[in-house]
């Protein structure tokens, strides 16, 4: 049992060891080459008030007067000591920005993850149980439409329908305006979470429906399922019990492996819904050529995606004993 887990972990750690520096160097090169001057974007509309001497003082304080390779080496040195540096855009340590915003983002991503997993898996199994008939065709059509829909379009649609049209759900922010975090109760927070999470869940739902349908359908057409059916098992029971067992592992693996897409989608959902998370901070950091914050966010994202993939592999092996021998 532990043999395969140890092998997997070692193999993945080796991969992380070369992947991380490579990704960081690549990203730093991109940020350095970007045609955005961090000081110009920091000064923004206040060009008239900030003179050349002050700009030089800012550049010196940020270490921007050193050449790019030297800055990267400096950054690496700090990382080795656990210091992520300071964000230019937010004038605060990167670790503080990450800590302050990660909670909001993780809540959103986690709920979206659960929503799309529940919806995707149950629709997939329902489609498998009714394959060839109208519910199957409707669900497959729905899955294709979902997969083809851009996230921002879904967000606008949801806002137009539930926030503006029906007035059921708020279209912005993580809590009602005017209330402090202590005053806003759980129900209000959940209400604010629904539309952004629904938007974000769209990213993963479509593929998951099709994937779990295919898996369950393959089982339902297998000799084992025919045997059970011959003994009187109903199609619904077959799909939802043994079918679920067959579809669950691959579905979870596919879904966990899609963590990266979920994080990417969160940038968009957070921007549209004014959700105060890391996605929003990423946009600001990119527009301001805020290299320390961008690298910090990228580092955190890379680790999360890596863990997601690792969890996918472990889950798949736990749920399907056949994979453990490989």
């Amino acid at each position, binding site marked *: 049992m532990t043999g395969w887990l140890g092998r997997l972990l070692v193999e993945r750690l080796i991969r992380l060891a070369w992947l991380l520096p490579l990704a960081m160097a690549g990203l730093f090169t991109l940020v350095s080459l970007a045609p955005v001057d961090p000081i110009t974007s920091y000064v923004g509309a206040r060009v008239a*008030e900030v003179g050349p001497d002050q700009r030089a003082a800012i550049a010196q304080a940020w270490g921007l007067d050193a050449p790019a390779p030297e800055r990267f080496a400096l950054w690496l040195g700090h990382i080795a000591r656990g210091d992520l540096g300071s964000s230019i855009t937010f004038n605060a340590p990167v670790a503080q920005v990450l800590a302050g915003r990660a909670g909001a983002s993780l809540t959103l991503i986690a709920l979206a993850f659960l929503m799309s997993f529940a919806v995707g898996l149950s629709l997939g199994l329902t489609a498998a149980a009714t394959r060839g008939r109208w519910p199957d065709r409707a669900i497959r059509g729905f899955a294709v439409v979902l997969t083809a829909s851009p996230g921002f379009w879904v967000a606008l649609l949801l806002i137009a329908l539930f926030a503006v049209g029906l007035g059921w759900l708020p279209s912005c922010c993580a809590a009602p305006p005017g209330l402090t975090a202590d005053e806003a*109760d759980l129900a209000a927070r959940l209400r604010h979470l629904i539309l952004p999470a629904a938007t974000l869940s769209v990213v993963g739902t479509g593929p998951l429906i099709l994937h779990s349908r295919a898996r369950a359908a393959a089982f339902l057409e297998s000799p084992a399922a025919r045997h059970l059916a011959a003994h009187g098992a109903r199609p619904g029971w077959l799909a939802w019990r043994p079918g679920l067992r067959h579809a669950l592992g691959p579905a979870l693996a596919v879904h966990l492996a899609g963590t990266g897409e979920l994080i990417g989608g969160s940038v968009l959902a957070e921007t549209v*819904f004014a959700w105060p998370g890391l996605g929003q901070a990423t946009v600001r950091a990119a527009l301001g050529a805020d290299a320390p914050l961008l690298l910090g966010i990228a580092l955190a994202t890379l680790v999360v995606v890596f863990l997601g993939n690792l969890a996918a592999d472990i889950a798949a092996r736990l749920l399907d004993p056949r994979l453990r021998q490989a």
Partner: protein
Amino acid sequence: MRPLSFLALAVSLSLPLAAEAAPPLVLAVGGEPETGFDPIMGWGRYGNPLFQATLLRREADLSLAGDLATGWTLSDDRLTWTITLRDDARFSDGTRLSAEDVAFTFNAARDGDGLTDLKVLKEARATGPLTVELELRHPQITFTGDLATLGIVPKASYGPDYARHPVGAGPFRLVEWREGEQLIVAPNPYWHGPEIPFPRVTFVFGAEAAGLALARTGAAQIVAVPPAEADAAPEGMQVLHVPSVDNRGVMFPMRPAGGTTAEGAPIGNDVTADRAIRVAVDQAVDRTALLALAVNGHGAPAHGPADGLPWDNPADRLSETGPDAARATLESAGWTDADGDGLREKGGLKAQFQLVYPASDSVRQALALGVAEALKPVGIRAIPDGRSWDEIGRLMHSEPVVFGWGSHDPSEVFNLYESSLAGRGWYNPGFYANPAVDAHFAAAEASESYEASLPEWRAAQWDGTTGFGAKGDAAWTWLINIDHSYWVSDCLDLGPIQTEPHGHGWPITQGLPGWRWTCE
């Protein structure tokens, strides 16, 4: 339920005898300072610093009045300001504000590496518990602008986390800041000003659309709206178009082509170096049409960098305008269309230039296209060219650029036209130089007071014989001033409103402590 019960509680606790109760305000006017609320790093230069008090403040007509200062005098050599402070100013933690705090703030801002540029200050000294001396390196009357915008921080508790936990002697204290989402403030009980009727003021940040949605559901009382949406105010709100000096204009390179900057950017443009071309552009553009094209008509024609402000000189306007006047100007200067292709030439040089604008800005794009259209019939070809700010930084010394400015401080005019600032960063990118204008600037900066400097600023624009304005060198063609549009609750009385500077949104909060609620 909860806001109501909170309101009832707040009112019953703090205003037992109040005749009418104002509700908590919710504003969606953008302007979140991502770096926090530290005046030394640059917070509060536009609009209201909320938490901190300033030595002086600008009234609605931009005249200067005392806030923390009860007296301010400038020495005869124009180098040392002596400031007397009021004795009843307290920070929101209850501690007294003293001359030490003022000196600390100014010295820290001078040494700071943020957006507060106080390099002109030599030293600030507390000479008594309530008197401060501010010594400058050279005479600079526009330092009064810093007296009016730099919020005073407490020396005792100022530290690295100040930006996120501000303490000041201003009208409000911080209740909660959820970054990227909203800022909640409440009146500072120790403030020396009049009582503020609102128990709480909330600023909602995030996307513009979110603010509009809040207004439509009645959850916000003031919302900044884009020009295209402004006229459809929801019920219970009215549209407010605030005039501004948030201007847009075309900057011209003034020198003939030749030479490069230290960074290697080319300097000069043979076409725009000719005054006749610049005057013809000023005459040919139809500013009313540009307003309709770029901002739905919500704005005013612009003729100078500070239209309507105390240091503006309207006498610099050209008397003859329109395409015919432009054609006459070009003809008499020798720009003729000899080959009949619709484009004028002079000595083999075609009347043609790029018109650069930031590609990310749709308003400036519309202006560039509009100007190009207006110049076609008079025989000048302007080729609109959208670029990134970085590219503009390299192109701006040799090609005309659509820039936007607008400040409550005459030093902006200095920065745009002073010859010694030519090519220094974004200041005077066209290498404009006129000794008479420089002399007026020097005289203005050496004035005995802000009021006394105003005639010199006006003379720099047009002194009867020369100036940077259209009648003089026509160094820029100013196009439009953009109105800033807001939806404001019918129950809210904003009092007198300043002509707003560059930046739509936060400047509306300038008079916030004086706002009144007029409904029951």
